[in-house]
């Protein structure tokens, strides 16, 4: 049984299609990336998964149930835009939100205290939220979303607003959740986090799914690049086999120019290099650039009208 399954899900607001015919599955205990540029339909999809808004078409099954709202106690949710009651203390906030998920006050208090202390918020336990820094408040809200030990954790842009140290801490926390058996779904438009954490991703653009698969499969969608340095002539480079494009990079070092050769899908960097050496091209250095998720993101979303994440 999948932790989450969407089948032909669509969401329309009047004439605007926020999400179209979206289908994917998330396996239990995995870390799943839900990626896409702003306005791709990520937040609408997550809201449908949570039962906050009904889908216009299709079917959603969460933790084995297709009845909206039935599994809410087993889900932890961190929204994209965050906030807590300004006069509440972190511990009271954890007890309140865990209570809504069915955790008794005594258990929530004990668990909340331990989690807050583990996140370095021990001294802030009794202070009102308004006295906490933004980073501290975000940690408290994350703890509020996790204190009931959910089976499915949905994090909408969890890294936004966090400094690099806290981002690293959050990555560790997400890995810990998955190690304990929870399924983690997080949306982001920053590819580096997804690249480090996810086993599978779904990539959205303009409300449609443009990719669904593993990280390796996603990277394969982007072309491999070969960077050559030397006293090179672009016209002779263009005649090399298996190239989609030749781009000269800015700057000349000791009379040598730098060129990026983008290979055609399935093209071999070794074949290009071999041909270049056979033609006696003046190459002083070469470097193979394997595609990143960022490259894949740009290639996959460009086809749907988006340029940059």
């Amino acid at each position, binding site marked *: 049984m999948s932790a989450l399954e969407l089948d032909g899900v669509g969401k329309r*607001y*009047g004439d605007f299609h926020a999400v179209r015919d979206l289908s994917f599955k998330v396996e239990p205990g995995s870390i799943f990336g839900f990626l896409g540029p702003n306005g791709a339909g990520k937040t609408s999809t997550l*809201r449908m998964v*949570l039962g*906050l*808004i009904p889908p216009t078409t299709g079917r959603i099954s969460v933790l084995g149930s297709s009845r909206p*709202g039935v599994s*809410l*106690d087993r*889900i932890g*949710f961190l*929204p994209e*835009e*965050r*906030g*807590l*009651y*300004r*006069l*509440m203390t972190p511990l009271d906030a954890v007890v*309140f*939100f865990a*209570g*809504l*998920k*069915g955790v008794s006050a005594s258990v929530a208090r004990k668990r909340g205290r331990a989690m807050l202390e583990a996140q370095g918020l021990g001294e802030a336990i009794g202070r009102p939220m308004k006295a906490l820094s933004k980073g501290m408040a975000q940690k408290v*809200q994350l703890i*509020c*979303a996790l204190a009931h030990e959910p089976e499915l954790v949905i994090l909408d842009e969890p890294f936004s607003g966090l400094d690099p140290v806290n981002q690293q801490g959050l990555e560790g926390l997400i890995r810990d959740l998955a190690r304990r058996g929870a399924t983690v779904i997080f949306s982001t438009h920053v590819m580096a986090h997804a690249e480090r954490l996810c086993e599978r991703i779904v990539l959205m653009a303009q409300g449609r799914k443009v990719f669904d698969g593993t990280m390796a499969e996603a990277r394969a969608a982007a072309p491999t690049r070969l960077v050559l340095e030397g006293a090179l002539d672009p016209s002779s480079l263009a005649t090399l086999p298996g190239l989609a494009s030749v781009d000269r990079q800015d700057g000349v070092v000791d009379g040598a120019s730098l060129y990026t050769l983008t290979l055609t899908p399935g093209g071999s960097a070794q074949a290009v290099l071999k041909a270049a050496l056979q033609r006696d091209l003046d190459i002083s250095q070469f470097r193979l650039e394997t595609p990143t998720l960022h490259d894949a993101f740009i290639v996959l979303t460009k086809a749907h009208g988006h340029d940059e994440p």
Partner: protein
Amino acid sequence: MMSPDMVSTNMAASLNRLRLIATREFLSYLRTPGFWLSLMIGPIAASFGAMAPAMMHQAAPAPVLTVVDLSDTGAAPAIAAALGGRKPLAILVRPPAAAAQATSAAEAGGALRPYLSGDPPAGGPRLDAAAILSGSPEAIVVDFWSRDINDSDLQMVVRGAAAQSMQQARLRAAGLAPQLVAQLSTAAPAVHSYSPRAARGQVSMKDRLPSLLGLGLAFVLFFAIFTGAGILLNSVIEEKSSRILEVLLSSATVPELLGGKILGVAGVSAFIIAGWGAMGLLALQRAAPEMVAEVGSALMTHGLVVWFAFFFVLGYLMYASVFAAIGAFCETVREAQTLLGPIMILISLPVMFLTLALEHPDAPLIVVLSLVPPFTPFLMTARLAAGPPLWQTLGALVLMAATTTAVVWLCARAFRAGALSTGKLDLKRLALGLLGRAG
């Protein structure tokens, strides 16, 4: 299909969420200084209201009046008698010599003017008002001068006394003996007030008490809605602007969230009202202990307090739902104010008819309006003590219950749509929210 055990578990979980939301809402206001100020302001305002007449009398001593009778009309003694008594309405002083020796009303007025504006001339009295009498005893002309152009009470007393003096003069001129005229002027009927609605036929304060309490309870409802709505609106706006609503909606259903918030704020209002009631009861026990039992029995007249409880709950629920739904669409109080104006007017409209409902509970207009739901909780409460026909009370209750159900259902849809919406509030989005098509 869910098993009975699962239904029972879900129900318990739902009630637990409702309780948690209501408790948080209640406690969050209990900790604010505004709550304790609200609790204290009622008794302070009531004490101030009770002491105000005495304080005003002390702060504004009786005005100084002079009467100049230019043609021996004989009305001056009647004016003096009308102004006197245990609490004199004015202090009568002799007119300045220049005014007393004047030959016309205009000349007397000119002579009095310096004494009525600014500081009086040396040795003369500082006057607040002056009555210059001219004409004849049967046709008196009064030129009334006053320092304060808005003070008409004193003028009315002088006019009444002069009129009575004129009537007596005319009766004497018609040949009636002065002794008989004097007897006629003091003649007045002994009036006894009866009503089939009075317990013993003759109307007493005890009979009027239920109606007065009904009016008071209608004002209590108005206060509860007015303050509760403000608290609820601010609370929802805070949660909306800080995006807490979205998290709450991922943990609780809209009925649990809306119900919990309304219940919590109703608890705040109930706490304040109960506090006022307790303080009022203590004050009554000290001031007039015999009245305590009468107030208790008045509250049970025609089931006043029981019916009031129904109308209170329905009215509060209806208005609170509307305010919560509006709050869900707004990120700032300023945004909410654009919609609050019409709602506040709607709430205030019934209050304008409350006095009429007290005096004429069976007037056709009041009967019809009390059956119209936005008016029902206020006007029926004010009418209840008069014992309206049962079909009217029950009909109003059924209509009110149906309307409240519809309003709460619509507001719950709007609340969900508003909670998840972004951007500024406009009527189109609100209408789509009410239709359940905004999200």
